[in-house]
């Protein structure tokens, strides 16, 4: 094999690359501690109750941070991500679509139509099943539209 020496060189190069990472890591630890250590020596020491408070962009924090989020937020986030990714997927498709020949183009078009069709069925499904209603159980029970909070 003529390739072997070349690959061996790549392998050693790979390990040399890891050495750089290790060096970077060590330097990072050292530099961070150095800066904090110097600051500790130089700074005045005035502890106070307000300084120990959680920082919330300057606002006074209210309530505990251990709030349980309603599971509905996750559902909405999931629906959002599905359609968000769909749009991202459409962009590169649209870019390569134009220069394609008629035969390949028709196939690629049908493929994307199938993809969008599957998502449309999914949207119809969650819509009919009531997962888009913010208050699902109430909407089903009364049979009427129930608004947000």
């Amino acid at each position, binding site marked *: *094999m003529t*390739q*072997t020496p070349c*690959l061996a060189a790549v*392998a050693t190069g790979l390990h040399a690359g890891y050495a750089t990472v290790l060096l970077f890591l060590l330097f990072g630890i050292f530099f961070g501690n150095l800066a904090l250590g110097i600051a500790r020596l130089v700074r005045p020491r005035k502890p106070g109750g307000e300084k120990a408070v959680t920082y919330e962009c300057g606002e006074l924090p209210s309530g505990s941070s251990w709030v349980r989020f309603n599971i509905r937020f996750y559902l909405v986030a999931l629906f959002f991500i599905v359609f968000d990714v769909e749009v991202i997927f459409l962009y590169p498709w649209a870019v*390569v679509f134009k*220069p*394609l020949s008629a035969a*390949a183009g028709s*196939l*690629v078009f049908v*493929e994307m139509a199938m993809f969008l069709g*599957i998502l449309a*069925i999914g949207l*119809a*499904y969650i819509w*009919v099943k009531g997962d888009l209603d913010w208050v699902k159980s109430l909407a089903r029970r009364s049979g009427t539209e129930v608004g947000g909070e």
Partner: protein
Amino acid sequence: MSVDMLQIPDWSDLGGFLPETVMFGAFLLALLGDLVVRRRPVVPFAVVMAGALTALALSFAGLDAPERTILGGLVVVDGMAAFFRILFSLIAVATLLVSWASEEIMGRSRENKGEYYALIALMTGGMMVMAEARDLLMLYLSLELVSLSSYVMAGYMRNSLRATEASLKYVIFGAVSSGVMLYGLSLLYGLTGSLTYAGVRDALAAGAGDPLSLLTVCVLLLAGLGYKIAMVPFHFWAPDVYEGAPTPVSAFFSVGPKAAGFALMIRFFYTTMQPAVDRVDWRLLIAVLSVATMTFGNLVAVRQVNVKRLLAYSSIAHAGYLLMGFLMLTAEGLQAILFYLLVYALMNLGAFLFVVALNNSLKSEHLDDYAGLGFRSPWAAAMMIVFLFSLTGLPPTAGFIGKFYLFAAVMHEGWYWLAIVGVLNSVVSLFYYMKIARTMYFTKAPADAPAVPIAPLHYVTLVLLAAPTLFLGLYWGGFKDLADRAVQHFTAL
């Protein structure tokens, strides 16, 4: 990258992808049917059943076909793919029949029955793709498709705490193992610079990768694949999930995704890792894991008193037996695995079906509640005996023939110690399988034991599974021939 470099699939590619297309189409139709005709689960059931039977009929044609790469090089269709399509369609049909008469699935309080049947179609299609992937991206995509559907199916009984716990454990464990596997795949891509199996194989054959990094890749990949087939030490989810999930779902999980995981492992390891065998002895690694898997599964199963949990550990042990054939890297070993997977699907689905059928009236899977079943429900108990004999590997059942071919393949390659461990394990398994038989026939039922009526559909399905389990123990030639034909064009050997 210019447009010319893209591999645009051809219309004719879809012709080779028909069974999967049918299954995915059935999934969408079942969902739509569930929306249009509400509260009539028979519509999605019929759609998925028709889809599975169509896929089954379409799959036989491909058994003798030579290898063909389709869909832009992501998927390969050959005899082995056809074999697994047949197997998965059969498993889907059996699962549908089992589910339809099951109280756990069709009980009055259950919601989303249509969704359940749709998910079976989606998972069956996904498992077929797992058996055909020839690209690292497709490998991951198909694996995740099956995994994500199975998390939902495990949590189907939304009001049951046990089922919810099972589903959550499954999600967390699955997410971790697929993440670990993804890291292994990225390392493999870094070492070889290719995503296709063929590209990875060529790079490895040209000497890419030192032993240490290849070993790391193997271990990381086995985390993801081992989780799918419930291999020690990635088996922890299996007993809890099988026990907590509805029993028809456990039946499906214990045969479907496990066989799909094996299909994926066979194609991946045989194609890509074979040239690397001089630098990383992954065969020995898998041999050790195989021994650990079967020994652990069998020894822990001995102490179980919940029949579902017992069958879960027994299915772990069976993964161990199958791994023995897997590491032989011979056509004989491969044929033995395929045949054993077919036999295993029959007998394991049968054993689980017995549990489903009894659960309808007993509402329990505890071994003590099975006392005297041999007289309370003689026909069903007799068929359970057939499945238990077959799972142990006793003649004249299919399990004996399956194990015989498996052990023969191991011996022919000179791995005598492995075959001996396998035989010793079968002896251990005899103890706990016969524990069920003993409870059914030799323990007296309490006087107030409830009657155990069995749904007619369950009787029919039991016969449909028990008859071939017995028949294959006497005339296995036809089915063995299927397995032999499936690997005749498998080029990776």
